[in-house]
């Protein structure tokens, strides 16, 4: 049957080709290197929406704007636990909890209004209008999943970007030194990279996290000082950042070394040496600007990797520690709630979806950038 279809199609194709009809038009939207491929454009738009929303809402979700109140990311409403998204179907159980939560809200409001008020029996309409409407549902402690996803996204993306910056910084310097000086130094430096590649990074991260934790406890015991919650979160996040950044610069170093190896043989580098340009100026004025393309490309490809690693570690429970959310530990929490009796699907679906879409978008953007910076594509070169 397949052969029949092929035979049917083949003549039409042959009939079209000699006529000089253009082949399928490549998916290109403009000459701007950033917006050349359709996937890249879609990726950028999606990424922009998600990351801007997550990052710009961070001050609010983490409670920096109103320090006296409980930060929204962990504001609990125990009556409102496990509420599905308001637009989805509610089973009897959920409907009951919804009304309970509404009643509790009304009761709190009247209490705030003034003590000594008579017990108040709200009407059904009042209850309906007071019922919490969670866009993405709520979790086991009645926390708004949407807010937690926003905050978690901010944490995940922020750590991804920070880790990428660390890896670009270390990787570029390391790779450029190895590539430029070459010889024995290069061999030694690259063997170190090979060895680090060989170490299982999960092990490294666990060791690092445990060691930092132990050191922190010992320091607290020795000095008798208590670290505040915020400080502990800071130490936790920083440890994770160092761990992820510390393993993801290896690829960067290799890429940059390769680029420098080929760049330093270019006649313009030789011209710089003939002129007597000092070493640091050779590096900053001649090498670095020509490395910018690959650096940007690999940085955009490192961000999703770092986000994935952070999420993975958080999923395993050694990354960002609850109650601070990250997409990774939100997914882990959602997975724990997944059972056949009461499938709280929203707790798993939304964080996973956000994580997946963001990673995909980042990869599309990275690929688009790589294509745009490919020197074999003349038009891309022209616009730089």
């Amino acid at each position, binding site marked *: 049957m397949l052969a029949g279809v092929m035979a049917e199609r083949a003549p039409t194709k042959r009939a079209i080709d000699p006529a000089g009809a253009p082949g399928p038009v490549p998916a290109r939207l403009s000459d701007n290197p950033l917006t050349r491929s359709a996937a890249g454009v879609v990726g950028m738009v999606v990424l922009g929406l998600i990351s801007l929303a997550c990052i710009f809402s961070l001050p609010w979700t983490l409670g920096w704007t109103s320090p006296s109140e409980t930060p929204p990311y962990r504001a609990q409403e125990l009556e409102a636990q496990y509420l599905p998204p308001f637009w989805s179907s509610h089973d009897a159980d959920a409907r009951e909890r919804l009304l309970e939560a509404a009643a509790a809200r009304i009761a709190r409001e009247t209490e705030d209004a003034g003590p000594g008020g008579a017990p108040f029996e709200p009407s059904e309409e009042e209850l309906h209008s007071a019922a919490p409407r969670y866009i993405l549902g709520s979790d086991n402690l009645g926390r708004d999943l949407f807010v937690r996803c926003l905050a978690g996204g901010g944490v995940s993306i922020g750590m991804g970007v920070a880790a990428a910056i660390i890896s670009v910084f270390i990787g570029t310097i390391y790779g450029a030194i190895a590539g430029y000086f070459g010889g024995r130094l290069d061999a030694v430096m690259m063997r170190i990279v090979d060895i680090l590649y060989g170490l299982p990074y999960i092990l490294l991260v666990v060791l690092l996290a445990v060691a930092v934790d132990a050191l922190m406890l010992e320091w607290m015991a020795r000095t008798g000082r208590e670290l505040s919650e915020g400080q502990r979160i800071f130490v936790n996040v920083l440890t994770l950042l160092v761990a992820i950044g510390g393993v993801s610069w290896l690829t960067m170093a290799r890429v940059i070394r390769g680029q420098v190896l080929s760049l330093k043989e270019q006649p*313009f580098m030789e011209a710089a*040496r*003939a*002129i*007597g*340009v000092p070493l640091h100026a050779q590096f900053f004025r001649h090498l670095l*600007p*020509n490395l*910018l393309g690959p650096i940007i490309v690999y940085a955009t490809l490192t961000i999703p990797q770092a986000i994935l690693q952070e999420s993975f570690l958080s999923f395993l429970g050694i990354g960002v520690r609850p109650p601070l959310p990250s997409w990774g530990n939100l997914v882990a929490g959602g997975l724990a709630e997944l059972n056949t009796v009461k499938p709280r699907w929203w707790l798993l679906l939304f964080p996973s979806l956000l994580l997946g879409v963001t990673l995909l978008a980042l990869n599309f953007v990275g690929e688009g950038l790589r294509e745009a910076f490919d020197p074999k594509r003349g038009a891309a070169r022209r616009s*730089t």
Partner: protein
Amino acid sequence: MTDPKDREKSPPEAHTPQEERSIAHRPEEKASRESGGAALAPPAAEEKSSPPILEVNGLKVHFPVRSGVLQRVTGWVKAVDGVDFHVREGETLGLVGESGCGKTTLGRAVLRLIPPTAGEVRYRGNNLLTAGGAEMKRLRQEMQIIFQDPAGSLNPRMRIASIVSEPLRVHGVCNDKDELRERVQTLLERCGMPRNCVDRYPHEFSGGQRQRIGIARALALSPKFIVCDEPTSALDVSVQSQILNLLRDLQGEFGMSYLFISHDMAVIQHMCDRIAVMLGGKIVEEGPRERILQEPQKDYTKALLSAVPVADPRERRKRAASAA
């Protein structure tokens, strides 16, 4: 092409011992000088003997060949293997030979862009190979190189203004922004480029224009000695002659010496006062242009000359007859 006799620039009158060794045919040299354009010659050539600006003695550049798991050195590529020559003030020495004979390596080694294995390079008496950082930097102001590949020799991410002004800035010759710009524009204009090209990037120019920019950069510090590493082999023929004439005019104007590397006999004939023929890392024959072109001594030189295509069919027939 102009008659070679019209442009005798610096007849290397043999006075130093090296000169006695290398030039055996002085009468011709004199004859050609008497017949021709002494008026064109730069001041340096007016003197009976101009001192050598660059002397190279026993220069060797060997590259190790490594093989095996341990990357042990199993042999050496002798790219330049014991070369002696000198270049006089205001003179052009042509270095000719087949590809792979070490011409380019020699040119780079002379400027210490490739570390030589052995030998001595003296620029006005200063040993270049032992010069320290500060001294080398000072000497680099007087020696420059023009590259074969005009596209690759300009940093694609820099504007023409900063490419050409870089030597001036690096050596602190000039730091004032407006003055730098003025100097760069004057230089570019001298090299046949429009003044308004300074804010553009190298890829916006043609091969010939890029080579002019490369020449302007080399000239920025008013060097006394320039290595021209096949400056025209990447250009098409009409642009070639423009660039060659520019180089020649500039030589007259600034009184520079050239070490002119090429595999093209016609270019060498057009440009050079003396010619050195290289083969397998060694100079097999050296002498004034007229003698090398008309009475080559070594078989390799003869073969090289006979490989030059002849445009005139009668000449061609004559040559075929003599070869048979």
